[in-house]
Protein backbone atom coordinates (compact mmCIF):
# COMPACT_ATOMS: atom_id res chain seq x y z
CA UNK A 1 0.00 0.00 0.00
CA UNK A 2 1.27 3.41 -0.85
CA UNK A 3 1.35 5.73 2.10
CA UNK A 4 2.01 9.37 1.73
CA UNK A 5 4.38 10.66 4.32
CA UNK A 6 3.87 14.06 5.80
CA UNK A 7 5.42 16.83 3.81
CA UNK A 8 7.16 19.80 5.24
CA UNK A 9 6.18 22.97 3.50
CA UNK A 10 8.36 26.01 3.82
CA UNK A 11 5.47 28.28 2.91
CA UNK A 12 3.46 26.99 5.80
CA UNK A 13 6.08 28.09 8.28
CA UNK A 14 7.19 24.56 9.02
CA UNK A 15 3.70 23.25 9.64
CA UNK A 16 3.10 19.77 8.36
CA UNK A 17 0.35 18.33 6.26
CA UNK A 18 -0.47 14.83 7.32
CA UNK A 19 -3.08 12.22 6.74
CA UNK A 20 -3.01 10.68 10.16
CA UNK A 21 -0.67 11.40 13.01
CA UNK A 22 0.59 7.84 13.14
CA UNK A 23 0.62 5.05 10.61
CA UNK A 24 1.92 2.08 12.56
CA UNK A 25 1.72 1.06 16.21
CA UNK A 26 5.42 1.67 16.74
CA UNK A 27 5.23 5.22 15.44
CA UNK A 28 3.88 6.69 18.62
CA UNK A 29 6.67 5.17 20.72
CA UNK A 30 9.31 6.31 18.29
CA UNK A 31 7.84 9.77 18.17
CA UNK A 32 7.79 10.02 21.93
CA UNK A 33 11.43 8.87 22.12
CA UNK A 34 12.48 11.44 19.54
CA UNK A 35 10.75 14.22 21.40
CA UNK A 36 12.75 16.52 23.61
CA UNK A 37 10.70 16.16 26.70
CA UNK A 38 9.91 19.05 28.97
CA UNK A 39 10.75 18.94 32.63
CA UNK A 40 8.36 16.99 34.80
CA UNK A 41 7.06 20.23 36.23
CA UNK A 42 6.77 23.00 33.68
CA UNK A 43 8.50 26.16 34.79
CA UNK A 44 7.18 28.61 32.25
CA UNK A 45 3.41 28.84 32.25
CA UNK A 46 3.10 30.77 29.04
CA UNK A 47 1.00 30.54 25.92
CA UNK A 48 2.57 29.83 22.55
CA UNK A 49 3.50 32.61 20.18
CA UNK A 50 0.18 34.21 19.52
CA UNK A 51 -1.24 36.57 16.98
CA UNK A 52 -4.76 37.90 17.42
CA UNK A 53 -6.51 40.48 15.33
CA UNK A 54 -10.07 41.64 15.81
CA UNK A 55 -12.19 42.90 12.93
CA UNK A 56 -10.50 41.21 10.00
CA UNK A 57 -13.60 40.99 7.85
CA UNK A 58 -15.81 43.84 6.69
CA UNK A 59 -18.75 41.62 5.70
CA UNK A 60 -19.76 40.73 9.26
CA UNK A 61 -20.04 42.75 12.43
CA UNK A 62 -17.71 40.69 14.57
CA UNK A 63 -14.74 38.74 13.35
CA UNK A 64 -11.38 37.73 14.69
CA UNK A 65 -8.37 35.87 13.41
CA UNK A 66 -5.97 34.06 15.66
CA UNK A 67 -2.74 32.19 15.21
CA UNK A 68 -1.63 30.09 18.11
CA UNK A 69 1.68 28.70 17.03
CA UNK A 70 0.74 26.93 13.83
CA UNK A 71 -2.93 26.60 14.66
CA UNK A 72 -4.89 29.14 12.65
CA UNK A 73 -8.50 29.96 13.32
CA UNK A 74 -11.02 32.50 12.06
CA UNK A 75 -14.17 33.29 14.05
CA UNK A 76 -17.25 35.13 12.85
CA UNK A 77 -20.12 36.44 14.96
CA UNK A 78 -23.22 37.89 13.37
CA UNK A 79 -25.69 40.01 15.34
CA UNK A 80 -28.52 37.97 16.93
CA UNK A 81 -31.47 37.16 14.73
CA UNK A 82 -34.97 36.14 15.63
CA UNK A 83 -35.71 32.51 16.36
CA UNK A 84 -37.80 30.82 13.73
CA UNK A 85 -39.61 28.49 16.04
CA UNK A 86 -39.63 29.31 19.71
CA UNK A 87 -40.18 26.46 22.10
CA UNK A 88 -41.10 26.55 25.75
CA UNK A 89 -37.66 25.62 27.03
CA UNK A 90 -36.06 28.54 25.29
CA UNK A 91 -38.33 31.09 26.89
CA UNK A 92 -35.97 32.61 29.43
CA UNK A 93 -32.70 32.51 27.54
CA UNK A 94 -31.40 33.38 24.12
CA UNK A 95 -30.08 30.51 22.06
CA UNK A 96 -26.43 30.16 21.19
CA UNK A 97 -25.30 28.09 18.23
CA UNK A 98 -21.69 27.44 17.36
CA UNK A 99 -20.59 25.91 14.10
CA UNK A 100 -17.05 24.74 13.56
CA UNK A 101 -15.81 23.97 10.08
CA UNK A 102 -12.49 22.77 8.83
CA UNK A 103 -11.18 24.44 5.73
CA UNK A 104 -10.81 21.85 2.98
CA UNK A 105 -7.04 22.09 3.23
CA UNK A 106 -6.82 22.06 7.02
CA UNK A 107 -6.80 18.34 7.50
CA UNK A 108 -5.67 15.48 5.33
CA UNK A 109 -7.91 13.01 7.08
CA UNK A 110 -11.24 13.70 5.41
CA UNK A 111 -13.22 10.77 6.83
CA UNK A 112 -13.33 11.89 10.43
CA UNK A 113 -13.80 15.59 9.65
CA UNK A 114 -17.59 15.72 10.00
CA UNK A 115 -17.51 13.93 13.31
CA UNK A 116 -14.77 16.18 14.66
CA UNK A 117 -16.66 19.24 13.45
CA UNK A 118 -19.78 18.13 15.27
CA UNK A 119 -17.85 17.32 18.41
CA UNK A 120 -16.01 20.64 18.41
CA UNK A 121 -19.23 22.58 17.71
CA UNK A 122 -20.89 20.99 20.70
CA UNK A 123 -17.96 21.70 22.99
CA UNK A 124 -17.61 25.27 21.76
CA UNK A 125 -21.30 25.92 22.39
CA UNK A 126 -20.86 24.60 25.92
CA UNK A 127 -17.88 26.85 26.48
CA UNK A 128 -19.50 30.00 25.14
CA UNK A 129 -22.88 29.59 26.85
CA UNK A 130 -21.70 30.77 30.28
CA UNK A 131 -19.80 33.68 28.74
CA UNK A 132 -22.55 35.39 26.75
CA UNK A 133 -25.30 37.29 28.57
CA UNK A 134 -28.03 35.18 27.07
CA UNK A 135 -30.77 36.90 29.04
CA UNK A 136 -30.29 39.98 26.88
CA UNK A 137 -31.62 38.54 23.67
CA UNK A 138 -34.70 36.48 24.50
CA UNK A 139 -36.24 34.70 21.56
CA UNK A 140 -33.17 35.46 19.52
CA UNK A 141 -30.39 33.24 18.42
CA UNK A 142 -26.74 34.08 18.15
CA UNK A 143 -24.68 32.21 15.59
CA UNK A 144 -20.95 31.86 16.01
CA UNK A 145 -19.02 30.35 13.15
CA UNK A 146 -15.47 29.17 13.32
CA UNK A 147 -13.29 28.28 10.37
CA UNK A 148 -10.19 26.24 11.08
CA UNK A 149 -7.44 26.99 8.64
CA UNK A 150 -4.70 24.92 10.19
CA UNK A 151 -4.67 22.44 13.03
CA UNK A 152 -1.60 21.92 15.16
CA UNK A 153 -3.10 21.08 18.52
CA UNK A 154 -4.95 23.21 21.08
CA UNK A 155 -7.73 23.52 18.52
CA UNK A 156 -10.66 23.95 20.87
CA UNK A 157 -8.87 26.36 23.19
CA UNK A 158 -7.75 28.51 20.27
CA UNK A 159 -11.29 28.52 18.89
CA UNK A 160 -12.62 29.65 22.28
CA UNK A 161 -10.06 32.46 22.54
CA UNK A 162 -10.84 33.60 19.03
CA UNK A 163 -14.61 33.51 19.62
CA UNK A 164 -14.17 35.54 22.79
CA UNK A 165 -12.47 38.31 20.83
CA UNK A 166 -15.01 38.12 17.99
CA UNK A 167 -17.89 38.43 20.47
CA UNK A 168 -16.45 41.62 21.93
CA UNK A 169 -15.79 42.95 18.43
CA UNK A 170 -19.42 42.32 17.51
CA UNK A 171 -20.61 44.19 20.59
CA UNK A 172 -22.39 41.24 22.20
CA UNK A 173 -22.48 41.70 25.94
CA UNK A 174 -20.45 39.10 27.79
CA UNK A 175 -19.93 38.57 31.49
CA UNK A 176 -16.17 38.56 31.15
CA UNK A 177 -13.32 37.94 28.77
CA UNK A 178 -12.86 34.25 28.15
CA UNK A 179 -9.53 32.57 27.57
CA UNK A 180 -8.71 28.92 27.19
CA UNK A 181 -5.71 26.64 27.07
CA UNK A 182 -4.76 22.99 26.88
CA UNK A 183 -2.42 20.86 28.94
CA UNK A 184 -1.68 17.16 28.84
CA UNK A 185 0.32 14.55 30.66
CA UNK A 186 1.97 11.47 29.20
CA UNK A 187 4.43 9.20 30.99
CA UNK A 188 4.73 11.74 33.80
CA UNK A 189 5.77 14.53 31.43
CA UNK A 190 3.52 17.55 31.43
CA UNK A 191 3.07 19.25 28.09
CA UNK A 192 1.52 22.69 27.96
CA UNK A 193 -0.09 23.75 24.68
CA UNK A 194 0.61 20.36 23.11
CA UNK A 195 0.90 19.86 19.36
CA UNK A 196 -1.60 17.65 17.55
CA UNK A 197 0.66 14.63 17.73
CA UNK A 198 1.23 14.87 21.46
CA UNK A 199 -2.47 15.47 22.03
CA UNK A 200 -3.31 12.29 20.21
CA UNK A 201 -0.69 10.39 22.20
CA UNK A 202 -1.86 11.60 25.58
CA UNK A 203 -5.51 11.04 24.79
CA UNK A 204 -5.44 7.56 23.36
CA UNK A 205 -2.48 5.95 25.12
CA UNK A 206 -2.58 3.18 22.57
CA UNK A 207 0.54 1.32 23.52
CA UNK A 208 -0.63 0.84 27.05
CA UNK A 209 1.69 -1.31 29.08
CA UNK A 210 0.12 -3.10 31.99
CA UNK A 211 1.49 -0.71 34.55
CA UNK A 212 -0.96 2.02 35.43
CA UNK A 213 0.28 5.23 33.93
CA UNK A 214 -1.77 8.33 34.06
CA UNK A 215 -2.33 9.95 30.74
CA UNK A 216 -4.73 12.61 29.76
CA UNK A 217 -5.63 15.94 28.31
CA UNK A 218 -7.38 18.89 29.88
CA UNK A 219 -8.95 21.85 28.10
CA UNK A 220 -9.98 24.70 30.37
CA UNK A 221 -11.76 27.92 29.51
CA UNK A 222 -11.89 30.46 32.28
CA UNK A 223 -13.19 33.91 33.07
CA UNK A 224 -10.71 35.37 35.47
CA UNK A 225 -12.44 38.36 37.04
CA UNK A 226 -14.37 36.04 39.32
CA UNK A 227 -12.16 33.03 38.65
CA UNK A 228 -14.94 31.10 37.00
CA UNK A 229 -14.35 28.02 34.90
CA UNK A 230 -16.59 28.04 31.85
CA UNK A 231 -15.49 24.74 30.41
CA UNK A 232 -13.32 21.98 31.70
CA UNK A 233 -13.08 18.95 29.49
CA UNK A 234 -10.88 16.05 30.39
CA UNK A 235 -9.85 13.06 28.31
CA UNK A 236 -7.77 10.09 29.36
CA UNK A 237 -7.13 8.61 32.77
CA UNK A 238 -6.06 10.82 35.66
CA UNK A 239 -6.04 10.81 39.43
CA UNK A 240 -7.60 13.79 41.10
CA UNK A 241 -4.24 15.18 42.25
CA UNK A 242 -2.91 15.24 38.69
CA UNK A 243 -6.19 16.63 37.45
CA UNK A 244 -6.03 19.60 39.80
CA UNK A 245 -2.36 20.12 38.95
CA UNK A 246 -3.10 20.30 35.23
CA UNK A 247 -6.13 22.48 35.90
CA UNK A 248 -3.96 24.97 37.76
CA UNK A 249 -1.40 25.04 34.94
CA UNK A 250 -4.07 25.80 32.37
CA UNK A 251 -5.57 28.48 34.60
CA UNK A 252 -2.16 30.14 34.89
CA UNK A 253 -1.72 30.08 31.10
CA UNK A 254 -5.22 31.50 30.75
CA UNK A 255 -4.27 34.42 32.97
CA UNK A 256 -1.33 35.43 30.80
CA UNK A 257 -3.40 34.94 27.65
CA UNK A 258 -6.00 37.22 29.13
CA UNK A 259 -3.48 40.06 29.32
CA UNK A 260 -2.77 39.54 25.66
CA UNK A 261 -6.43 39.48 24.65
CA UNK A 262 -7.10 42.56 26.69
CA UNK A 263 -4.18 44.35 25.03
CA UNK A 264 -5.45 43.39 21.60
CA UNK A 265 -8.94 44.62 22.37
CA UNK A 266 -7.86 47.95 23.82
CA UNK A 267 -5.61 48.49 20.83
CA UNK A 268 -8.51 47.68 18.57
CA UNK A 269 -10.79 50.15 20.37
CA UNK A 270 -8.14 52.86 20.09
CA UNK A 271 -7.66 52.09 16.43
CA UNK A 272 -11.40 52.25 15.88
CA UNK A 273 -11.52 55.53 17.75
CA UNK A 274 -8.82 56.98 15.53
CA UNK A 275 -10.63 55.75 12.47
CA UNK A 276 -13.81 57.38 13.73
CA UNK A 277 -11.98 60.64 14.30
CA UNK A 278 -10.50 60.55 10.84
CA UNK A 279 -13.88 59.80 9.36
CA UNK A 280 -15.37 62.68 11.28
CA UNK A 281 -12.65 65.00 10.04
CA UNK A 282 -13.23 63.84 6.49
CA UNK A 283 -16.95 64.35 6.69
CA UNK A 284 -16.37 67.78 8.20
CA UNK A 285 -14.19 68.63 5.21
CA UNK A 286 -16.86 67.38 2.86
CA UNK A 287 -19.49 69.47 4.64
CA UNK A 288 -17.31 72.51 4.31
CA UNK A 289 -16.84 71.94 0.60
CA UNK A 290 -20.57 71.58 0.08
CA UNK A 291 -21.20 74.68 2.06
CA UNK A 292 -18.79 76.61 -0.16
CA UNK A 293 -20.61 75.36 -3.23
CA UNK A 294 -23.94 76.44 -1.81
CA UNK A 295 -22.48 79.84 -1.05
CA UNK A 296 -21.24 80.14 -4.63
CA UNK A 297 -24.61 79.06 -5.93
CA UNK A 298 -26.35 81.67 -3.95
CA UNK A 299 -24.00 84.34 -5.27
CA UNK A 300 -23.80 83.37 -8.91
CA UNK A 301 -27.10 81.74 -9.67
CA UNK A 302 -27.36 78.28 -11.26
CA UNK A 303 -26.60 79.16 -14.91
CA UNK A 304 -23.38 80.91 -14.20
CA UNK A 305 -22.37 78.27 -11.68
CA UNK A 306 -22.74 75.52 -14.20
CA UNK A 307 -20.83 77.46 -16.81
CA UNK A 308 -18.03 78.14 -14.39
CA UNK A 309 -17.74 74.48 -13.51
CA UNK A 310 -17.52 73.17 -17.05
CA UNK A 311 -13.99 72.30 -17.85
CA UNK A 312 -12.56 71.04 -21.00
CA UNK A 313 -11.75 67.42 -21.25
CA UNK A 314 -7.98 67.30 -21.61
CA UNK A 315 -8.10 64.04 -23.57
CA UNK A 316 -10.36 65.31 -26.28
CA UNK A 317 -8.38 67.33 -28.71
CA UNK A 318 -9.90 70.43 -30.05
CA UNK A 319 -10.75 70.35 -33.65
Amino acid at each position, binding site marked *: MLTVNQTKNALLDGASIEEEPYTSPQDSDEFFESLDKPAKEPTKLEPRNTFIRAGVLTTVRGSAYMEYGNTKVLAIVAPPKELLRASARRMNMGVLNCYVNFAAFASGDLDSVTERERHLSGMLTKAMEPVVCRTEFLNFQLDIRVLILDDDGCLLSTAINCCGVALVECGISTYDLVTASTACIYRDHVFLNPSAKIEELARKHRRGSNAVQEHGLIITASMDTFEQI*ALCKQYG*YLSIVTYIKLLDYTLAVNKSLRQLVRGVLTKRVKEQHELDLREKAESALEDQRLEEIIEKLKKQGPEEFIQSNIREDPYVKRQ
Partner: protein
Amino acid sequence: MAYVALSEAEKTYILHGVEDDFRCDGRSRRDYRPMDLETGLVSNASGSARLRLANTDILVGVKTEIDVPNPLTPEFGKLEFFVDCSANATPEFEGRGGSDLAQELILSLQNAYESPLAFDYRTLCLIPGQQCWKLYIDILILECGGNLHDAVSLAAKAALFNTKLPRVTATMLDAGITDLIISDNPYDCTRISIETVPLLVTVCKVGDYCLVDPSAEEEVCSTVSVVVSVSMRDGQAFLSGTHLTGGGAMHRDTMRNCLELGLAIGEHLDRLLTKMLNLEQERVGPKRPQTIGFLK
Protein backbone atom coordinates in the same frame (compact mmCIF):
# COMPACT_ATOMS: atom_id res chain seq x y z
CA MET B 1 -32.54 17.42 29.31
CA ALA B 2 -36.23 17.01 29.25
CA TYR B 3 -38.11 20.13 29.97
CA VAL B 4 -40.15 20.50 33.14
CA ALA B 5 -42.16 23.64 33.79
CA LEU B 6 -41.54 24.99 37.29
CA SER B 7 -42.83 28.15 38.86
CA GLU B 8 -40.60 30.53 40.79
CA ALA B 9 -42.12 29.38 44.10
CA GLU B 10 -41.46 25.73 43.34
CA LYS B 11 -37.86 26.53 42.50
CA THR B 12 -37.41 28.38 45.77
CA TYR B 13 -38.89 25.43 47.63
CA ILE B 14 -36.40 23.04 46.02
CA LEU B 15 -33.54 25.46 46.65
CA HIS B 16 -34.33 25.79 50.34
CA GLY B 17 -34.66 22.04 50.66
CA VAL B 18 -31.19 21.58 49.21
CA GLU B 19 -29.78 24.22 51.57
CA ASP B 20 -31.15 22.31 54.57
CA ASP B 21 -29.81 19.01 53.24
CA PHE B 22 -33.33 17.67 53.04
CA ARG B 23 -34.54 17.37 49.50
CA CYS B 24 -38.15 17.16 48.27
CA ASP B 25 -38.18 13.38 48.32
CA GLY B 26 -36.56 13.13 51.74
CA ARG B 27 -33.03 12.40 50.54
CA SER B 28 -29.87 14.12 51.69
CA ARG B 29 -27.54 15.70 49.13
CA ARG B 30 -25.44 12.58 48.82
CA ASP B 31 -28.24 10.03 48.36
CA TYR B 32 -29.42 8.26 45.27
CA ARG B 33 -33.01 7.41 44.53
CA PRO B 34 -34.03 3.75 44.71
CA MET B 35 -32.84 1.66 41.80
CA ASP B 36 -34.15 -1.48 40.15
CA LEU B 37 -31.70 -3.43 38.08
CA GLU B 38 -32.31 -6.54 36.05
CA THR B 39 -29.89 -8.23 33.70
CA GLY B 40 -30.19 -10.70 30.88
CA LEU B 41 -33.77 -9.98 29.93
CA VAL B 42 -33.38 -9.53 26.19
CA SER B 43 -32.91 -12.95 24.68
CA ASN B 44 -31.73 -11.68 21.30
CA ALA B 45 -28.80 -9.71 22.69
CA SER B 46 -25.53 -11.10 24.01
CA GLY B 47 -25.98 -9.09 27.14
CA SER B 48 -28.65 -6.77 28.43
CA ALA B 49 -29.73 -4.81 31.45
CA ARG B 50 -32.65 -2.69 32.44
CA LEU B 51 -32.28 -0.02 35.04
CA ARG B 52 -35.03 1.96 36.66
CA LEU B 53 -33.81 4.85 38.78
CA ALA B 54 -37.02 6.28 40.23
CA ASN B 55 -38.62 7.61 37.05
CA THR B 56 -35.67 7.15 34.74
CA ASP B 57 -35.95 3.98 32.75
CA ILE B 58 -33.10 2.63 30.65
CA LEU B 59 -32.77 -0.53 28.60
CA VAL B 60 -29.35 -1.55 27.31
CA GLY B 61 -28.57 -4.32 24.88
CA VAL B 62 -25.11 -5.47 23.84
CA LYS B 63 -24.62 -7.03 20.45
CA THR B 64 -21.41 -8.62 19.30
CA GLU B 65 -19.81 -8.78 15.93
CA ILE B 66 -16.45 -9.84 14.56
CA ASP B 67 -14.45 -7.04 13.03
CA VAL B 68 -10.95 -6.17 11.90
CA PRO B 69 -8.96 -4.21 14.49
CA ASN B 70 -7.58 -0.78 13.83
CA PRO B 71 -4.04 -1.10 12.41
CA LEU B 72 -2.77 1.27 15.09
CA THR B 73 -4.11 -0.91 17.87
CA PRO B 74 -3.77 -4.48 16.61
CA GLU B 75 -4.55 -6.09 19.94
CA PHE B 76 -7.56 -3.94 20.85
CA GLY B 77 -11.22 -4.70 20.25
CA LYS B 78 -13.84 -2.09 19.54
CA LEU B 79 -16.80 -0.56 21.33
CA GLU B 80 -19.59 1.43 19.80
CA PHE B 81 -22.31 3.27 21.65
CA PHE B 82 -25.69 4.18 20.38
CA VAL B 83 -28.34 6.05 22.33
CA ASP B 84 -31.95 6.19 21.27
CA CYS B 85 -34.26 8.61 23.01
CA SER B 86 -37.66 7.03 22.69
CA ALA B 87 -40.54 9.39 22.00
CA ASN B 88 -42.36 7.65 24.86
CA ALA B 89 -39.96 9.27 27.31
CA THR B 90 -41.13 12.82 26.72
CA PRO B 91 -43.10 14.33 23.86
CA GLU B 92 -40.07 16.49 23.12
CA PHE B 93 -38.18 13.51 21.77
CA GLU B 94 -40.61 13.10 18.90
CA GLY B 95 -39.00 13.25 15.50
CA ARG B 96 -35.43 14.43 15.84
CA GLY B 97 -36.01 16.14 19.17
CA GLY B 98 -33.87 13.79 21.20
CA SER B 99 -30.88 13.72 18.89
CA ASP B 100 -28.94 16.46 20.69
CA LEU B 101 -29.33 14.76 24.03
CA ALA B 102 -28.50 11.37 22.53
CA GLN B 103 -25.40 12.84 20.94
CA GLU B 104 -24.25 14.26 24.25
CA LEU B 105 -24.75 10.96 26.03
CA ILE B 106 -22.88 9.06 23.33
CA LEU B 107 -19.97 11.48 23.52
CA SER B 108 -19.71 11.29 27.31
CA LEU B 109 -19.77 7.50 27.22
CA GLN B 110 -17.24 7.30 24.41
CA ASN B 111 -15.00 9.70 26.26
CA ALA B 112 -15.27 7.75 29.50
CA TYR B 113 -14.50 4.41 27.82
CA GLU B 114 -11.78 5.78 25.56
CA SER B 115 -8.75 5.08 27.72
CA PRO B 116 -7.50 1.49 27.57
CA LEU B 117 -7.02 1.73 31.32
CA ALA B 118 -10.73 2.35 31.82
CA PHE B 119 -11.86 -0.49 29.59
CA ASP B 120 -9.51 -3.35 28.79
CA TYR B 121 -9.85 -3.57 25.04
CA ARG B 122 -7.44 -6.52 25.02
CA THR B 123 -10.17 -8.86 26.27
CA LEU B 124 -11.99 -8.27 22.99
CA CYS B 125 -9.04 -9.43 20.92
CA LEU B 126 -9.30 -12.69 18.97
CA ILE B 127 -6.26 -12.74 16.69
CA PRO B 128 -4.03 -9.69 17.06
CA GLY B 129 -4.10 -7.58 13.93
CA GLN B 130 -6.67 -9.77 12.22
CA GLN B 131 -9.85 -10.36 14.14
CA CYS B 132 -11.45 -8.78 17.17
CA TRP B 133 -14.82 -8.45 18.79
CA LYS B 134 -16.80 -5.32 18.23
CA LEU B 135 -19.45 -4.64 20.83
CA TYR B 136 -22.45 -2.52 19.98
CA ILE B 137 -23.91 -1.07 23.14
CA ASP B 138 -27.42 0.07 22.28
CA ILE B 139 -29.06 2.22 24.89
CA LEU B 140 -32.76 2.91 24.84
CA ILE B 141 -34.17 5.65 27.04
CA LEU B 142 -37.71 4.61 27.90
CA GLU B 143 -38.51 7.24 30.45
CA CYS B 144 -36.75 10.40 31.39
CA GLY B 145 -36.78 11.34 35.07
CA GLY B 146 -33.51 13.18 35.47
CA ASN B 147 -29.92 12.10 35.91
CA LEU B 148 -29.62 10.31 32.59
CA HIS B 149 -25.80 10.20 32.55
CA ASP B 150 -25.57 8.15 35.73
CA ALA B 151 -28.42 5.83 34.84
CA VAL B 152 -27.07 5.16 31.37
CA SER B 153 -23.57 4.39 32.59
CA LEU B 154 -24.84 2.09 35.35
CA ALA B 155 -27.01 0.20 32.91
CA ALA B 156 -24.18 -0.04 30.38
CA LYS B 157 -21.85 -1.47 32.99
CA ALA B 158 -24.45 -4.00 34.10
CA ALA B 159 -25.08 -5.01 30.49
CA LEU B 160 -21.35 -5.50 29.92
CA PHE B 161 -21.21 -7.69 33.02
CA ASN B 162 -24.02 -9.74 31.57
CA THR B 163 -22.44 -10.01 28.12
CA LYS B 164 -21.43 -13.49 27.07
CA LEU B 165 -19.00 -13.78 24.21
CA PRO B 166 -19.12 -17.20 22.57
CA ARG B 167 -15.83 -19.07 22.78
CA VAL B 168 -13.92 -18.89 19.55
CA THR B 169 -11.24 -21.24 18.37
CA ALA B 170 -9.02 -20.40 15.45
CA THR B 171 -7.54 -22.82 13.01
CA MET B 172 -4.64 -21.96 10.84
CA LEU B 173 -5.21 -22.50 7.16
CA ASP B 174 -2.77 -22.17 4.33
CA ALA B 175 -1.07 -18.88 3.54
CA GLY B 176 -1.50 -17.51 7.03
CA ILE B 177 -5.28 -17.19 6.74
CA THR B 178 -7.08 -18.11 9.90
CA ASP B 179 -10.51 -19.57 10.17
CA LEU B 180 -12.66 -18.89 13.20
CA ILE B 181 -14.91 -21.52 14.67
CA ILE B 182 -17.57 -20.25 17.03
CA SER B 183 -18.65 -22.66 19.71
CA ASP B 184 -22.07 -24.21 19.17
CA ASN B 185 -22.81 -24.53 22.84
CA PRO B 186 -24.47 -21.29 23.96
CA TYR B 187 -23.21 -21.86 27.51
CA ASP B 188 -19.62 -22.12 26.40
CA CYS B 189 -18.70 -18.48 26.62
CA THR B 190 -16.31 -15.91 28.03
CA ARG B 191 -17.18 -12.90 30.14
CA ILE B 192 -15.87 -9.37 30.15
CA SER B 193 -14.13 -8.03 33.20
CA ILE B 194 -15.97 -4.95 34.43
CA GLU B 195 -13.66 -4.12 37.31
CA THR B 196 -12.35 -0.90 35.81
CA VAL B 197 -15.35 -0.01 33.65
CA PRO B 198 -16.20 3.63 34.43
CA LEU B 199 -19.39 5.00 35.93
CA LEU B 200 -20.60 8.53 35.33
CA VAL B 201 -21.65 10.54 38.34
CA THR B 202 -23.41 13.85 37.75
CA VAL B 203 -22.69 16.35 40.47
CA CYS B 204 -25.25 19.08 40.20
CA LYS B 205 -24.86 22.55 41.65
CA VAL B 206 -28.13 23.85 43.05
CA GLY B 207 -27.82 27.17 44.81
CA ASP B 208 -24.54 27.07 46.69
CA TYR B 209 -24.51 23.34 47.24
CA CYS B 210 -23.54 20.30 45.24
CA LEU B 211 -25.71 17.23 45.13
CA VAL B 212 -25.82 13.92 43.31
CA ASP B 213 -28.60 12.20 41.43
CA PRO B 214 -30.73 15.25 40.62
CA SER B 215 -34.36 14.63 39.78
CA ALA B 216 -35.78 16.30 36.66
CA GLU B 217 -37.08 19.18 38.80
CA GLU B 218 -33.74 19.72 40.48
CA GLU B 219 -32.02 19.73 37.10
CA VAL B 220 -34.16 22.70 36.09
CA CYS B 221 -33.04 24.57 39.21
CA SER B 222 -29.35 23.90 38.73
CA THR B 223 -27.02 26.31 37.02
CA VAL B 224 -24.20 23.95 36.22
CA SER B 225 -23.27 20.33 36.72
CA VAL B 226 -20.09 18.29 36.43
CA VAL B 227 -20.23 14.86 34.87
CA VAL B 228 -17.48 12.90 36.62
CA SER B 229 -16.42 9.61 35.13
CA VAL B 230 -15.10 7.34 37.86
CA SER B 231 -13.04 4.27 37.11
CA MET B 232 -11.84 2.05 39.95
CA ARG B 233 -8.40 0.52 39.60
CA ASP B 234 -6.59 -1.28 42.41
CA GLY B 235 -8.95 0.21 44.95
CA GLN B 236 -8.17 3.74 43.81
CA ALA B 237 -10.60 5.97 42.00
CA PHE B 238 -9.46 7.61 38.76
CA LEU B 239 -11.08 10.19 36.54
CA SER B 240 -11.53 8.95 33.00
CA GLY B 241 -13.23 11.89 31.37
CA THR B 242 -15.14 14.68 33.03
CA HIS B 243 -16.86 17.70 31.65
CA LEU B 244 -19.06 20.60 32.65
CA THR B 245 -22.58 20.90 31.31
CA GLY B 246 -25.63 22.99 31.95
CA GLY B 247 -24.56 26.37 30.64
CA GLY B 248 -23.03 27.78 33.81
CA ALA B 249 -19.58 28.38 35.21
CA MET B 250 -18.02 27.49 38.53
CA HIS B 251 -15.06 28.40 40.70
CA ARG B 252 -11.97 26.23 40.83
CA ASP B 253 -12.56 25.26 44.46
CA THR B 254 -16.18 24.32 43.79
CA MET B 255 -14.95 22.25 40.91
CA ARG B 256 -12.51 20.46 43.19
CA ASN B 257 -15.22 19.76 45.75
CA CYS B 258 -17.52 18.46 43.04
CA LEU B 259 -14.83 16.13 41.73
CA GLU B 260 -14.08 14.81 45.20
CA LEU B 261 -17.77 14.27 45.91
CA GLY B 262 -18.20 12.58 42.54
CA LEU B 263 -15.25 10.27 43.13
CA ALA B 264 -16.45 9.28 46.61
CA ILE B 265 -19.97 8.60 45.40
CA GLY B 266 -18.72 6.80 42.30
CA GLU B 267 -16.53 4.52 44.39
CA HIS B 268 -19.46 3.62 46.62
CA LEU B 269 -21.81 3.14 43.69
CA ASP B 270 -19.32 0.92 41.91
CA ARG B 271 -18.91 -1.31 44.95
CA LEU B 272 -22.67 -1.64 45.39
CA LEU B 273 -23.29 -2.33 41.72
CA THR B 274 -20.67 -5.08 41.59
CA LYS B 275 -22.08 -6.60 44.78
CA MET B 276 -25.63 -6.58 43.49
CA LEU B 277 -24.64 -7.99 40.11
CA ASN B 278 -22.80 -10.86 41.74
CA LEU B 279 -25.72 -11.46 44.07
CA GLU B 280 -28.16 -11.60 41.18
CA GLN B 281 -25.94 -13.99 39.31
CA GLU B 282 -25.70 -16.28 42.29
CA ARG B 283 -29.41 -16.24 42.94
CA VAL B 284 -30.60 -16.75 39.41
CA GLY B 285 -27.67 -19.00 38.84
CA PRO B 286 -25.95 -19.83 35.64
CA LYS B 287 -28.78 -21.71 33.98
CA ARG B 288 -26.48 -24.38 32.73
CA PRO B 289 -28.17 -27.68 31.90
CA GLN B 290 -26.86 -30.45 34.07
CA THR B 291 -24.81 -32.81 31.99
CA ILE B 292 -25.19 -36.35 33.07
CA GLY B 293 -22.93 -39.08 31.85
CA PHE B 294 -20.60 -38.61 28.94
CA LEU B 295 -23.22 -37.35 26.48
CA LYS B 296 -23.10 -33.63 26.11
